[in-house]
């Protein structure tokens, strides 16, 4: 309890620093997740639509998943200049962190989009065609809505991973709530560590809960 009290006091006395870290953390997470969705959801669609390259894509990203997020960050670090140039409007370290987190979010997005689309009963799709839907209408009006719950579950996993891993951005000086955690660890100051850890947990939890809610919302009701 004392520890929490101290953490709270820290936040009170360093409001600007805390809010700045929180803003950076949220921005890192949101940009990374959006970028990952733009890049990897279409890749998941491609994987689901091609029996030739689909399994290869899914196999590759499943394997790539074992690379820990911190390793992704350090693997990219030597190329920070080139990668930073991709997003000149961001500080280099921020850009690097966004790229690493985007890659991290890829596997669950691809895997779930592919699985969700493939799980749709082929007889339902054929029936949609039989009623006179064009291929695009079959995809957009039937297959995608039915794949949505599984795809959103992937987005949920990705969001939680990204929010949690964004703490590592502090290691390369990109800021975020991870700053307090790294400082707390080096200084053996657990109250400082909590200043980072608790908000990160709350952010991850709220992403988890709101996306789980969305998932339920788009799931067709089963037998009542």
């Amino acid at each position, binding site marked *: 309890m004392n520890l929490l009290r101290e953490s709270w006091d820290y936040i009170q006395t360093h409001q600007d620093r805390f809010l700045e870290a929180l803003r950076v953390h949220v921005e890192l997470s949101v940009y990374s997740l959006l970028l990952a969705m733009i890049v990897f959801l279409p890749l998941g669609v491609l994987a689901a639509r091609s029996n030739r390259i689909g399994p290869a894509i899914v196999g590759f990203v499943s394997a790539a998943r074992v690379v820990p997020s911190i390793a992704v960050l350090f693997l990219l670090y030597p190329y920070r200049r080139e990668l930073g140039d991709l997003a000149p409007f961001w500080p280099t370290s921020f850009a690097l962190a966004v790229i690493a987190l985007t890659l991290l979010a890829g596997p669950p997005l691809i895997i779930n989009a592919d699985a969700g689309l493939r799980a749709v009963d082929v007889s339902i799709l054929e029936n949609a065609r039989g009623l006179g839907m064009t291929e695009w209408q079959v995809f957009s009006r*039937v297959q995608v809505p039915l794949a949505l719950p599984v795809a959103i579950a992937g987005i949920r996993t990705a969001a939680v991973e990204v929010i949690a891993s964004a703490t590592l951005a502090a290691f390369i000086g990109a800021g975020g709530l991870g700053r307090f955690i790294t400082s707390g660890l080096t200084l053996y100051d657990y109250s400082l560590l909590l200043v980072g850890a608790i908000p990160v947990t709350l952010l991850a939890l709220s992403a988890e809960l709101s996306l789980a809610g969305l998932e339920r919302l788009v799931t067709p009701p089963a037998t009542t």
Partner: protein
Amino acid sequence: MPLSDHLPNSGRHGSRIEFDRVSRVYSGADHAAVSDVILTIEPGRFVVLLGPSGCGKTTLLKMVNRLIEPTSGTIRIDGEDIRQMNAATLRRRIGYVIQQTGLFPHMRIEENIAVVPRLLGWPKESISQRVDELLDLIGLPHAYRRRYPAQLSGGEQQRVGLARALAVDPSMMLMDEPFGALDAITRLRLQDELLAIHRQLGQTILFVTHDIDEAIRLADEIVVLRAGQVIQHGSPLDIVTAPADDFVRDLVGGGEALRRLSLIDAGSALNRNGNVRNEGLPAVTSDANLRTVLNLLLQTGTQKVTVTDENGAPVGTLGIPDIWSAGLERGTES
């Protein structure tokens, strides 16, 4: 715009479907799934494709709405080669119902029914009005509009599938074992309703089943298929009384025994040795057929029925063994 403007087929009869030497060979298969089929289906006829599993019924059916393309031959609808038409446009003109209902689980009942009208760009009010009409036609309460398919029973779902296929009053319907997954009572009821709808609307129906009894109940004409070929094409009576070969005879076989029982009357199978004055037994008149008697025995759970003459005077009794031997005798005669 009145609703009827969207239903160009209203008051018109069904389409003519012609198969002209139609074959379909699947890649890798050693023989054709459908082989050289020549068949004309006259407007407004209820035609049943009958045959064992794997004989090519579904393949033949799906070639009509181009879910499967023939490897050779031509299919014409009202004289027009269907390859000349846009596939999606063609399909919107054809009602399509399958066994698994194919209802879209994420759409409410009203949305499911409205799929084709929406593809055709009907205005909202016309669609809504049509959904109500269709719910009336298939006997579901309007309150079902807002439900999802999973909240309906199998029979109700199949009704919705039927309503969806009927939405734009198509001049022809393709139905692939639509009642195959239903219990016997629901199946009978839906068969009756489908017949009533056909009588009312007069569209051409091409209906697939492997169930001879269903075929006989529904069909104006039965087309018997074996290994992708048409073996016999005729009225239900033709098929039952004059099977073209042993294959058709076997196909008709199981149900035929019961149908034969319905041709024998109780009086001629009477067991005159029984205790005629057996009180408390259900009674039938001597002109009742044996199928009715069998039905009565099974329903009441009694061993025998009393057979009476037209004045109600008992003339004998009839039990399962009597029906059995009567059925056997007549069976070997023919």
